[in-house]
C-alpha cells in the first residue's frame, strides 16, 4: 500500500513518451494499409498498450502495492460484467 520509497530504477519519462509516440505512429501508419478485419483489433491492442504505459509510468501504478492496483482493476472487472451479460442477450437473439 505504501508508495515505494524510490523509483530510481524506472525508465526515464522521455523513453516512455517516445514509446507512446511510436505506438501512435504505428497505429496511424496501419490505417494506410488496405482494409482488413484485423486492423480494428490491432488499433485497440495499440490503444491498450498505450494505456498500460500511461498507467504504469505516468500514473505510477508500477510503484504502488496493495489496494490501489486492486481498485484500478475493479472498475474494469465490473465493466466486463456489464459487457458480457449485455452481449449475452444481443448475441443470442439475432439482430436488433
Amino acid at each position, binding site marked *: 500500500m505504501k508508495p515505494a520509497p524510490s523509483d530510481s530504477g524506472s525508465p526515464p519519462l522521455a523513453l516512455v513518451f517516445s514509446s507512446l509516440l511510436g505506438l501512435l505512429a504505428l497505429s496511424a501508419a496501419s490505417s494506410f494499409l488496405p482494409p482488413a478485419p484485423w486492423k480494428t483489433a490491432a488499433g485497440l491492442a495499440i490503444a491498450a498498450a498505450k494505456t498500460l504505459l500511461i498507467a504504469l509510468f505516468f500514473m505510477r501504478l508500477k510503484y504502488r502495492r496493495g489496494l490501489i492496483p486492486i481498485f484500478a482493476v475493479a472498475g474494469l472487472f465490473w465493466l466486463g460484467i456489464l459487457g458480457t451479460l449485455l452481449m449475452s442477450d444481443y448475441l443470442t437473439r*439475432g*439482430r*436488433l
Partner: protein
Amino acid sequence: MNTGSPLATLATLLLTQASTSAARIDHAALGLLAASAVLVAVLAGLNLYFVVRYRRGSAVPRPPSALASWKIETLWIVATTIGFLGFFAWGARIYLDVERPPAGADEIAVIGRQWMWDIRQPNGRREFNELHVPVHTDIRLLLTSEDVIHSFFVPAFRLKQDVVPGKQVSLWFNATAEGAFPFYCSEFCGSKHANMIGVVVAESPERYARWLAQGDSAPERLARGGVLYQRYGCSGCHTQPSAVHAPALAGIYGRQIPVTGGGFVRVDDAYLRDCILTPGKVAPAGYPLIMPAFQGVVPEGDLIELIAYIRELDAGDRVDPNPRTSR
C-alpha cells in the same frame, strides 16, 4: 389441461384458466406459494416461540449450543440452493415452451398504438380492441408497435408480451375455454394507458369461422400481401425474370445467404424487415445497392403482411427457420 388436479381447481377459484399454458403456470405459482407459506409459517412460528420462551427475565436455561455453527450453515445453504434451483428449472421449462411458437399456428397481426389495439385476422377482417380466436387452435400473434412500448397481457391465458416499436415479436396460445377474457396494456404508454384494454373472444371454431365470414370481405392475408407486393413495387425487381439485378425472393425465406463484407445471414422475419426498411444494412452479396429505403413509407400493418407474403413465396423446398430468433 389439468382440470382434474386439486391444485388447478384451487387456482380456478381465483382466476379462470383459459389457455393451455395457464394451468402449467398456475401450478408453478402454487408450488411457490406452498413452499413460501411453509417457510413463512415455520420462521414466524420459531420467532414467536423464541421471543416468548427466551424473553428477558424468563428462567429458562440458555446453555451454549453444542452443534457446530458451520454444520448448520452448510445445511441451509445447500438446502436453499437445491430448493431454489428446482423452482428455477420448473419455471424455465414452462417458459421455454410458452415462448417457442408451435409450427403451423394461425397468425393474427396485432398492432399497438397510443392508445388502441389494431388487430387483423388472417382473412383481413380488422377489429379494434377485440380479438376473436377459435378455441383449441394454436394461435400465434404477430405483434408490433407504431409508437412506444406497449405490452399485450391476457390474465386468463397467463400470458404477456411487450410490444416494442421497431421490431416484430410473437406470442402464441391455445385457448381452452369459450368466453370473453379481458386483455390489458401492461407497459406504461402514456396518458390513456389504463384505457388501452380490450377483450379476447374465444369461441368454437365454427362460430369463429362464421364471424370471420361476416366481416368486410377483404382478401386473404397472403392475397393482400401479394397486392402490397405489387403496389410497393417489390415485384418490379424481385420477381424473376427482371431487367434489374436483384435477388429473387421465391424460396429465400429460411435460407442462409452470403452478405456483403463476408459472412452469412439467415433470412427470417427480422432480416426481411431490415431489408425493406433500410436496405444496405446487411445486404446480400453480389447485388448493387439500388433499392430505396421504405422506412416511413410502409406502415406496420402492411409490413407484417408483406413479410408474411414473402415468407410463403414458393414454400416448396423451404427450411423452417428457427422461429425463436424472430420472437
